[in-house]
């Protein structure tokens, strides 16, 4: 259906999910297992986008990626912490040089052992520009990336100099700058290991992946296949999967999954917020609502003189009634933003957002004292039904509370970003930002740092940048979280962006299934599902 046509930034296309509210519905955490194989396999809906290329360098962090691959570390949905998975330890003295030791006994689905080389191969493959892999940019943390990816001219290296295999179970990694958050980053499937065969010919394994995750595919699938069966990997070294088999039902467009769920064709599906109300009112099946580790925010084009004054930005930000938008417009399916990320992300609950309050009178006074507003105001977003709905409501509120003639317009997503990058837009814009890894630092860095990947406001504040760098170089994770939160507050006080809400999605599942959890950045945790 058309609403998903306009793709969101990537992590959103995947309907990314960190289960902030991460519920374990039923507490029977045991492996009450159903061994009778003649029972119909549990059908889990997924999107075609998640199934195009499963090579870690191309992976998108979907729940299927996590079912097939297990990286060095793993995010715990219930606590919000990062734990070791394949790694036995990840240690550093200076946050630049790291020693990674692997746990013994991990094997790939084909029986070959998971070694230090398996990780080095994967990272080198992704870092090589000749492969033009999507996750090439993530390898930037490793020393030697610049030699492989020079700004101009030919590469002067073929492998990352910062990744060194010491022995089968030990890696020595050198980073380009101190980064206390490395364990968080390594939990991404982009950093999963690959077999020797995959390294030699990645295209061959794109849709017949040999991973090290809790599930395996016995045969590959064709592009466009409608069903793919996953079988439990019995030699998995982590927590064994709850079900013997899972049938993935691949949707081109996730919007019809709810209808299919109702008609009994699907057992577990991630549904969009629009369908949540219907799902809650409907008796068939059960619903788990999850808050996405993402933020919908309003950004200001700081290159436009009209928004140069922080008071003007603050006035606009505080004239928005976030609670009304979430409660009325979104029918409660979302969370009014009080910071940069849902609280479950590390450090997120320590962020205070001065512009996230609703104070219409104060906003009007503030705008008045800043010189008032002249002329129309055009808000922008890309074509997406929720974005359009929310932005229209914001426009209405600005008109009502500030007396500004506010309207909205939409454009194709590519054009919106192109215009912003070229500084050709002249109105505040409503955008989505998903956390690249479960840490408030990720959002703060992406949205407000001078070099941030999603810094569309062209905001640049040395004080903020410095504070944020300090967080990365912090002595421990706790301190890193606190410093990142402090930095975020510095940025938010300048109001280059103002957070609006954290979007929600829902997992519906048929009765008889338990332990339905959200996976990091990718829908339901497939391995956790149990019958019972």
């Amino acid at each position: 259906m058309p609403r998903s046509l306009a793709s969101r930034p990537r992590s959103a296309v995947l309907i990314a999910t960190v289960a902030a509210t991460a519920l374990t519905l039923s507490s029977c955490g045991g492996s009450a297992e159903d061994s009778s194989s003649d029972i119909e396999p549990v059908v889990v809906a997924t999107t075609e986008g998640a199934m195009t290329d499963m090579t870690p360098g191309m992976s998108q962090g979907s729940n299927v990626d996590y079912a097939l691959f297990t990286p060095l570390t793993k995010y715990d949905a219930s606590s919000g912490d990062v734990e070791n998975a394949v790694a036995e330890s990840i240690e550093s003295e200076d946050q630049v040089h790291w020693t990674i030791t692997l746990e013994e006994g991990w094997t790939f689905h084909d029986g070959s052992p998971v070694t230090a080389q398996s990780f080095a191969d994967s990272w080198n493959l992704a870092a090589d520009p000749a492969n033009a892999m999507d996750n090439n940019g993530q390898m930037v943390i490793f020393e030697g990336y610049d030699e492989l990816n020079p700004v101009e001219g030919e590469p002067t290296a073929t492998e990352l100099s910062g990744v060194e295999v010491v022995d089968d179970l030990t890696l020595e990694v050198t980073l380009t700058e101190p980064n206390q958050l490395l364990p968080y980053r390594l939990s991404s499937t982009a950093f999963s290991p690959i077999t020797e065969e995959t390294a030699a010919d990645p295209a061959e394994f794109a849709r017949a992946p040999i991973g090290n995750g809790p599930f395996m595919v016995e045969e590959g699938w064709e592009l466009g296949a409608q069903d793919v069966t996953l079988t439990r990997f019995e030699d998995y070294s982590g927590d064994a999967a709850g079900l013997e088999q899972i049938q993935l039902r691949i949707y081109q467009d996730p919007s019809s999954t709810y209808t299919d769920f109702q008609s009994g064709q699907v057992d577990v599906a991630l549904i969009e917020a629009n369908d949540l109300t219907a799902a809650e009112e409907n008796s068939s099946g059960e619903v788990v609502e999850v808050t996405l580790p993402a933020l919908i925010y309003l950004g200001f084009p700081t290159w436009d003189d009209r928004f140069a004054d922080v008071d003007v930005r603050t006035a606009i930000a505080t004239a928005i009634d976030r609670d009304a938008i979430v409660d009325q417009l979104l029918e409660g399916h979302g969370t009014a933003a009080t910071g940069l990320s849902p609280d479950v992300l590390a450090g997120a609950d320590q962020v205070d957002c001065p512009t996230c309050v609703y104070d219409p009178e104060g906003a009007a006074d503030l705008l008045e004292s800043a010189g008032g507003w002249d002329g129309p105001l055009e808000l922008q977003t890309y074509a997406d039904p929720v974005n359009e709905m929310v932005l229209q409501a914001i426009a209405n509120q600005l008109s009502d509370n500030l007396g500004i003639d506010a309207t909205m317009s939409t454009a194709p997503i590519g054009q919106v970003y192109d215009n912003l990058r070229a500084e050709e837009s002249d109105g505040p814009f409503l955008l989505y930002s998903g956390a690249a890894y479960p840490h408030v630092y990720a959002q703060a860095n992406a949205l407000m740092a001078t070099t941030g990947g999603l810094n569309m406001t062209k905001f640049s504040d040395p004080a903020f940048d410095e504070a944020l760098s300090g967080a990365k170089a912090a002595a421990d994770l706790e301190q890193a979280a606190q410093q990142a939160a402090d930095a975020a507050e510095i940025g938010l006080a300048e109001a280059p962006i103002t957070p609006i809400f954290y979007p929600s999605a829902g997992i519906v599942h048929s009765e008889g299934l338990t332990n339905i959890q959200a996976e990091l950045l990718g829908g339901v945790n497939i391995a956790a599902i149990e019958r019972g």
Partner: protein
Amino acid sequence: MLPALPVALILVVAIAPGPFAGIFGNGDPRVCDLANSRADPRPGHPFGFDVQGCDLWANVVWGTRSSVLIGILVTLGVLIIAIVLGTLAAYFRRWVDMLVSRSLDIVLGFPALVGMVVVLTTIGQRNAFTVSAVLILFGWPGMTRVMRGSALAVVDRDYADAARGYGASSWRVMWRHVVPNAIAPVLVLASLAVGTMITAESALTFLGIGLQQPAISWGVQLNSAQAGFRQHLHLLLAPALFLSVTVLSFVVFGEAIRRRLDPSHQRSVR
């Protein structure tokens, strides 16, 4: 002519929606309160409220304007192109006909919807005029084809020949004899096209490439209604009802024109 009444009424609403919107009290489509979001109909608000908490009746009435404007604009555009190209092709034949017929084939060969998506995405600008222009761009071949066929028949009639015989210029023959006599089937198609084009606009908007807020049109309303129509059916029904009635009025009107122009009404529209 009785069938003209609904069309006339719709035109009046399109030109001056204000009084009609205000019949039940709240006539301003932009007075919105999120507290009323998706609220059901209640006294003073016969159609209830839309997602933004605006009065749906006022919105639907105001939506008549852009929907009907687009319908008429596109039909006029297509009609003019059809008359000009169809007549020229039929009158001059040879390379003019070849050119017109080939371009016609090219556009017809294009799956129109896909073409419109590509072009509208490319333009980026989406207002009543660009949407109309795109609908015209992909809508002209059908009517042009009919006009060409109809004009071909007229050009072959003796009176066109007779006019040339007493020295009338090509321009005069086309304008005074060919066009008036060939236009009937195209006019009928045109009256039907108004309705079709209104639906087409709503389809484009549904695809997210038609009009967009803050424009008020039935397509925009239907588009925003599809999100939650299962819980709030009135969101979908109100604009759909108006759309259907409008299209129907124009269809009935076209049918009446057809009967009038073709008393035997045995001749096919095409």
